[in-house]
């Protein structure tokens, strides 16, 4: 089982323009103990931008859950939540 929190940041056209470039810096913002427990990956357009039902880009998927209109703050909070949950489970 993967013990790291999986973060996929969409870096497609729509997400890039709407702020994905900023989101990529998240790794630098994570505090030391947190950083080791998170795996960050870039992915090409995941198709969520194609209709409006999923909300607005940029999109980030954290542990399989979609986050629309992602901001550094939102992503950070969600990561912290997931890390805690993962720790509880163990």
């Amino acid at each position: 089982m993967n013990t790291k929190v999986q973060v996929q940041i969409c870096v497609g056209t729509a997400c890039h323009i709407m702020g994905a470039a900023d989101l990529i810096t998240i790794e630098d913002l994570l505090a030391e103990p947190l950083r080791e427990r998170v795996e960050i990956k870039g992915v090409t357009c995941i198709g969520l931008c194609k209709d409006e039902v999923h909300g607005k880009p940029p999109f980030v998927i954290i542990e399989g859950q979609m986050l629309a209109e992602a901001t550094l703050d939102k992503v950070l909070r969600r990561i912290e939540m997931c890390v805690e949950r993962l720790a509880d489970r163990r």
Partner: protein
Amino acid sequence: MTELFVDISDLAVKKYGESLCGDQIKTARTEDKTIIVLSDGLGSGVKASILATLTTEIIIRMLKADVGLADVVETVIGTLPVCKRRKIAYSTFAVMEILHRDYTYKIVNFDSPPAMFFRQGRLIPAERRTTRIRERDISVSEGQLEQGDFVCLLSDGVLHAGLGVKMNFGWGWDNVAEHVELCLKDEPKCAWEVTHNVLAETHALYAGRPGDDASIVGVLARKQNRLTILTGPPLDRAGEGAIVERFLESKGRRIICGGTTGNIVAEHMGEEVQVDIRSMTPDVPPIGQLSGVDLLTEGIITMSKMLELLQECDCDAAALPSERDAAILLAHEILTADTIHFIVGQSINEYYQNPEFSKHISIRKNLIRELVFLLNQQGKHVTVEYC
């Protein structure tokens, strides 16, 4: 047979003090052949320029219309006015025609300095035969281009460089040929390196004040660099597979511009695109990786940025920024290619129509159109297919 690319560079300097150049050069590429014409109008200035322009225009047009070279020459010589006093035609010319089928060529000289032919960097004495057309001597040489061959057409202004300034008799055919051999020692990557060098020397020998119009055409036969760019998802989803196959089997380098397009290709190969987020910059989305594909980038933003880069650096690869983001790498690939084929999918992402978004990006089709125009000007052979 190695696939060759006929790289042509033409340069001219005008006589000091004149506002127009009396030498005119024109080149044309059709599906089957490449045509080069250099014409030198008698004297200099406006009159010479008009005569030379007429001569090149007539020759190019007729050859493009597939009139045989002999007939073209006959027509032009028959049409050209002749100076009554000096009994010479008002303009001279050299024509080179290269067939793409087997790279055989023919060079015709009418009162112009003989063309120079170099193989493996050495001057080869060309076998010339003289034929008479309308009582004028025409020299013809023929052969077949091989990789690395270099051919030089020039006007007598180059041969006369230095006359009365630095030399008694001017630079002269043999010395120019020797100079070209020297340039070829460095194995130039493009014809421009040689023509630029020769014309700079010409200018220097005239001490910066050319006594005549001087022009040169360099023809370098080199290995053809092919590139195929797939960008945008096709309209017809059912036809996707065939397009992907064709793309993956294309000769030369292969590039995908577009994340969704990349995903489509990856899916067909049963793979996944790997994104290298470290290559991302605030302006340009990151580079992706996929086997069999030489470069994978995001679509619209990266291509717009690349077009901007090409315009800024005037299509000179050496002037591109030294960083290595997706747009810069794409610009390098495009500048290295001689023949570029675009496969443009026309499926449009609905979201791009969104007003808060559309101000940021241009339409793929317009972008390609602008890019093709620019690349054609650079002498690249560009084809586009929409799907």
